[in-house]
């Protein structure tokens, strides 16, 4: 556990009760219990696509997205370690329902996808792996339409090939 804390800069101290519910709700129970955590199910088809346009089409239903300065993507210009590339996405758009990140030069184009329920801000920060230098494309679904922004990130040491 010490190593995990180190990753977070020591800021994530335990603040409450937690339980370790091993396989209880994933292994057994009815179908509805098994699937409680999926809104539309894990998007396997989109994650299996190698090309960004195909993955976008599978996930959002279209690969058409308007470039918009209302979507901001914060990522380093140069990532020294491709295994851990911090990215933050923020949108100044109404009714945001989904956000996805595509990395065209990775073996599989779609890196991560989020569903944003009503009342949650169109903001997310996380860390992704990059095999090599690539554009990083953030796509935001707002009121049924897609908006995107991209940024090129150079990678010194790739994070997918070991």
């Amino acid at each position, binding site marked *: 556990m010490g190593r*995990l804390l180190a990753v*977070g800069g020591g800021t994530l101290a335990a603040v409450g009760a937690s339980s370790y519910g091993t396989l209880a709700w994933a292994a057994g129970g009815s179908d509805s219990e098994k699937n409680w955590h999926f809104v539309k199910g894990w998007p396997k088809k989109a994650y299996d696509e190698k090309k960004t346009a195909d993955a976008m089409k599978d996930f959002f239903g279209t690969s058409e997205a308007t470039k918009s300065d209302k979507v901001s993507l914060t990522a380093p210009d140069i990532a020294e370690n491709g*295994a*851990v590339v911090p990215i933050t996405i923020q949108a100044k758009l109404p009714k945001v329902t989904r956000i996805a990140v595509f990395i065209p030069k990775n073996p599989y184009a779609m890196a991560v996808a989020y*569903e944003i329920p009503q*009342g949650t*801000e169109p903001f997310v920060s*996380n860390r992704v*792996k990059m095999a090599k230098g690539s554009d990083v494309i953030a796509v935001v679904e707002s009121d049924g339409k897609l908006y995107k922004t991209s940024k090129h990130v150079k990678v010194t040491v790739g994070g997918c090939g*070991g």
Partner: protein
Amino acid sequence: MASSIRIRAVQQGDIVDVKALVRHPMDSGFVKDSNGKIIPAHFIETLVFEYGGKRIFVADYGRAVSKDPFIEFKFKGGKKGQSITAKWVDNKGKSDQASYKIM
């Protein structure tokens, strides 16, 4: 065994800022071990956060999410002292969940 999930949720006005760390290898299936054998893909597929019985955030992860995933998001309407629950399930059907109070 300690939980794999750590959450720090802080109320700032009407917004709660949630930072979470999950301990998980997030093996992409592309990396070889020291003997040259491929390490099979093993990654979290879905990580969901709930507050007051409602979903407040869903992350559908792919192979490209870094080891020990970190996530930060913000939601409205959370109250200090109330609990946020996070649950994850991975591609091998393993899972974990934990609840933390908003500070």
